[in-house]
C-alpha cells in the first residue's frame, strides 16, 4: 500500500487500536492533522496547551494500562510537551508523543519553529526517533508502541519532519516485531527465586515493600495472593497505592517522607525487605546509611539498572513481576508458614495503635483531610482519583480509601504541579464508567486551568476539588518547619473567584466554606455530569504529618508540630 507519511501515522494508530488521542496543531504537523480530519476511527481531543495534551495521554495510560498518544507541532509545541514527557518518564508510563519538525532540508538552519527536539527529549524518554525517511516510518511506529509498553514501560517520542509527512512510501505495518538490541528479561531466574523464598522462610521480621512496578506489570492480584498467603506484612509506595485494599489487615500504610509511623518502623526493624517493583526513591528511604539497617534485601524489577542503584541488594531478581510472583507462589505455599510472623505482625499493629495516621478534626474550619476522607466515604471505589502536587497530594495518598490498582493517578517521580486536571481528563476518556475526581491545590490548579475549556468542549465531566488554603501549602509547610516562618512567595491570598471562573468556561463552580455544604456540592457535581470545580476553603496552616525531614531517618519521624 502506498501512503503518505501522515496517512501512515493514522493507519498505524488504527492497527494499534488507538481510540483516543490528545493534541494541538501547528505548522509542522498540519499534514497529519489533515489526515486526522479525514478519519473517524479515533477521537482527537483538542487540549488548550501541549503540556496538558501529554498529561492527558499519560492519565489515559495510567488509568487503562494502554499506550496514550499525543500530537504536537514543532518548536514551542514540542517544548511545551517536555514536562509531560519527563513526568511520564519518571513514573514509567507508556505514552507516545508525535511532534512535527521543520522539513529535513531546513534542519540545522535555525528555521522558523525549529528546535532540536530529539536532543531535548533524549534524557526524558525511554527512546526517541527523528524520522529521516518515510519508508522507515511504519517500522518506527511499530517499534515505538512496542518499546513504550514492553519491559519497563515509558514514553517514546517520534519527531517527523514536515516533508516526511507529505512523502509517499510503502506502508507495510509489521505484525510482529523483534529488536535484536532490546530484549527485556521477563522470567525471573528460578534459582534466585528459590533463594529468595528460603530467605523469606528464614526471616523473623520480613516486610513487603510494594512499588509502582506491580501496577505496570498488572501483578496486583498475584501480589494480593502472595501477601495474604504468607501473612507477611506490607507497605506501599505512593505509586503502589491501591495494590492492596486500604483495609487489608496486612497493609501498614504508605512508607517514606509522609508515610505512616508503622510503615516506617516496619522498614527500620525488618530483617528482610521484599521489594516488589519499587525504586528506593530518596523520598522513601530517608538517610541511606540508616535505611533498613538490619535487613537483607530482595529486589524484583524488570529493569536491571534499578537493582543495586541506591542500595546493596542481597537477592536481585530481574523479571516481570507478574511472572516472578507467579513463580514464587507455589514455592511459598510449600515453604512458608504464616504463623511464624505473628509476633512481628502484632508489633506492627501496636505501632499502628500508638501512632495511627490521624488528624484533628474541627467544626469551625474544614480540615483538608476531612474533605478527602468524606469524599472517600461518599464515592469510594466508584471514583478514580488524580491529584496535583503538594500537601493535598500527600493527604490524598494518606486518607483516600483506595481499593484497586490504577485507582490513584499522581505524579510521583517528577512531582509535576498542573498534572492532575489534564491527567483526570485523560483518565476519564479511558474509564468512562467511573467518576474521575482530581484533588488539587489553589496553586496547582492554575497551572493548567485552561483545560476547563477542553473538558467542557469535549464533554469530559471531571470533578476538581480544590483544597484551598491560600498558600503554596507544601512549600509553606517547609518554611514553617525549616525557615522560621519566612513565607517567601508562598502566600496565595490573591485568588480568582473559582465559581465565576468555572462559570465563564461553561463549567459548574461551587464554593464550600462550611462542612455541611460539601456533600451537597459533591453530589450536585456528580449528578450534573458536567465539568466542575468545588472550591473548598480549608484550614490555612494544616501540616502534612507525620514527616521524615529530608535526609532524616525513617525511624525518627516528626509526629507532631507544636507552634
Amino acid at each position: 500500500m502506498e501512503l503518505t507519511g501522515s496517512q501512515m501515522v493514522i493507519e498505524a494508530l488504527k492497527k494499534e487500536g488507538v481510540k483516543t488521542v490528545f493534541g494541538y496543531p501547528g505548522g509542522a504537523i498540519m499534514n497529519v492533522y489533515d489526515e486526522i480530519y479525514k478519519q473517524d476511527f479515533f477521537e482527537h481531543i483538542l487540549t488548550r496547551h501541549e503540556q496538558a495534551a501529554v498529561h492527558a495521554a499519560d492519565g489515559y495510560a495510567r488509568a487503562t494500562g494502554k499506550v496514550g498518544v499525543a500530537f504536537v507541532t514543532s518548536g514551542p509545541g514540542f517544548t511545551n510537551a517536555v514536562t509531560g514527557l519527563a513526568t511520564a518518564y519518571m513514573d514509567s508510563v507508556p505514552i507516545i508523543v508525535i511532534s512535527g519538525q521543520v522539513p529535513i532540508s531546513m534542519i540545522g538552519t535555525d528555521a522558523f519553529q525549529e528546535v532540536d527536539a530529539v536532543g531535548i527529549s533524549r534524557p526524558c524518554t525511554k527512546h526517541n526517533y527523528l524520522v529521516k525517511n518515510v519508508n522507515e516510518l511504519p517500522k518506527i511506529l511499530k517499534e515505538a508502541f512496542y518499546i513504550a509498553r514492553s519491559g519497563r514501560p515509558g514514553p517514546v517520542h517520534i519527531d517527523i519532519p514536515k516533508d516526511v509527512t507529505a512523502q509517499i512510501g510503502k506502508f507495510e505495518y509489521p505484525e510482529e516485531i523483534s529488536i535484536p538490541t532490546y530484549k527485556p528479561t521477563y522470567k525471573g531466574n528460578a534459582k534466585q527465586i528459590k533463594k529468595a523464598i528460603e530467605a523469606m522462610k528464614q526471616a523473623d521480621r520480613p516486610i513487603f515493600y510494594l512499588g509502582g512496578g506491580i501496577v505496570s506489570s498488572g501483578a496486583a492480584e498475584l501480589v494480593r495472593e502472595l501477601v495474604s498467603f504468607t501473612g507477611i506484612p506490607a507497605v506501599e509506595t505512593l505509586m503502589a497505592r491501591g495494590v492492596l485494599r486500604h483495609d487489608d489487615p496486612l497493609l501498614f500504610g504508605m512508607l517514606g517522607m509522609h508515610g505512616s509511623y508503622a510503615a516506617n518502623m516496619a522498614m527500620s526493624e525488618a530483617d528482610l525487605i521484599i521489594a516488589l517493583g519499587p525504586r528506593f526513591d530518596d523520598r522513601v528511604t530517608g538517610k541511606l546509611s540508616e535505611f533498613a539497617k538490619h535487613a537483607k534485601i530482595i529486589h524484583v524489577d524488570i529493569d536491571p539498572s534499578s537493582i543495586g542503584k541506591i542500595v546493596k541488594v542481597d537477592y536481585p531478581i530481574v523479571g516481570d513481576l507478574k511472572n516472578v510472583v507467579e513463580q514464587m507462589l507455589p514455592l511459598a505455599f510449600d515453604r512458608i508458614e504464616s504463623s511464624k510472623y505473628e509476633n512481628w505482625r502484632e508489633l506492627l499493629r501496636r505501632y499502628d495503635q500508638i501512632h495511627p495516621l490521624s488528624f484533628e478534626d474541627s467544626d469551625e474550619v474544614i480540615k483538608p483531610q476531612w474533605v478527602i476522607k468524606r469524599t472517600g466515604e461518599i464515592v469510594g471505589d466508584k471514583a478514580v482519583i488524580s491529584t496535583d502536587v503538594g500537601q493535598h497530594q500527600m493527604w490524598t495518598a494518606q486518607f483516600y480509601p483506595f481499593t484497586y490498582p490504577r485507582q490513584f493517578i499522581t505524579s510521583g517521580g517528577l512531582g509535576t504541579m498542573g498534572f492532575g486536571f489534564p491527567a483526570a481528563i485523560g483518565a476519564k476518556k479511558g474509564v468512562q464508567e467511573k467518576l474521575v475526581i482530581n484533588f488539587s491545590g489553589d496553586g496547582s490548579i492554575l497551572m493548567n486551568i485552561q483545560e476547563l475549556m477542553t473538558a467542557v468542549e469535549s464533554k469530559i465531566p471531571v470533578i476538581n476539588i480544590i483544597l484551598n488554603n491560600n498558600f503554596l501549602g507544601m512549600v509553606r509547610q517547609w518554611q514553617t518547619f525549616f525557615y522560621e516562618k519566612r513565607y517567601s512567595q508562598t502566600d496565595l491570598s490573591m485568588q480568582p473567584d473559582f465559581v465565576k471562573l468555572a462559570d465563564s468556561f461553561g463549567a459548574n463552580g461551587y464554593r464550600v466554606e462550611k462542612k455541611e455544604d460539601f456533600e451537597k456540592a459533591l453530589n450536585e457535581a456528580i449528578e450534573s455530569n458536567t465539568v466542575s470545580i468545588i472550591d473548598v476553603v480549608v484550614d490555612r496552616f494544616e501540616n502534612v504529618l507525620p514527616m521524615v525531614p529530608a535526609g532524616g531517618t525513617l525511624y525518627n519521624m516528626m509526629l507532631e508540630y507544636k507552634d
Partner: protein
Amino acid sequence: MKERKIISVTVLNEHGVLSRIAGLFAGRGYNIESLTVAPIPDTNLSRFTIVTNGSTRVLEQIVKQLYKLIPTYKVIDNKEFVEKEMALVKIPLDTNLSGLDALLKGYNGTVANSGENYLVLLVADDSKRVSNFLKAVKKFNPIEIVRSGSVALEIE
C-alpha cells in the same frame, strides 16, 4: 574508592547514538577519561571504547545504563583487554635531535612524516607508556601533541 575501567560497547550505528552515550555520561554525572568510536566493518554496528572511573556501584550502574539504551547490542566490561592508544608529536627539525632514535626505539615509535621544518612522531602503546613517552619527548621541544583515546579488544 575509585577504580579505572574499560568498557566496550557495541551499538547499532544509527542517528544520534553518540549523543545517547555521551548524554548518558553527562546527564548522570559519570566520568569519561576517553571515548573512541568507529564503525565495525561490514556491519551496521559501531564499537565504542570508553575509559571511565568511579566507585564499584557507579561502574556497575554505568554498565547497566549503557545496556538499557535501546540501540545497545553488547556491553563488555569484565574481560581482560589489550588496550592501546596513540599519540602524534610534532617537533621542529632545528632542535637538537640527538637521542631521538633511541627514544623511538624504546617505545616502538616511528617517524610518521618528515617535512621541511617538522617531524611528526607516532607511538601506539599502553596508556601508561604513551604518557612516559610524552614526558621523555619534551626535551625535543614538541610544538603540538595529539593523543587518541584508548581502543581495546578482549584477549579471548
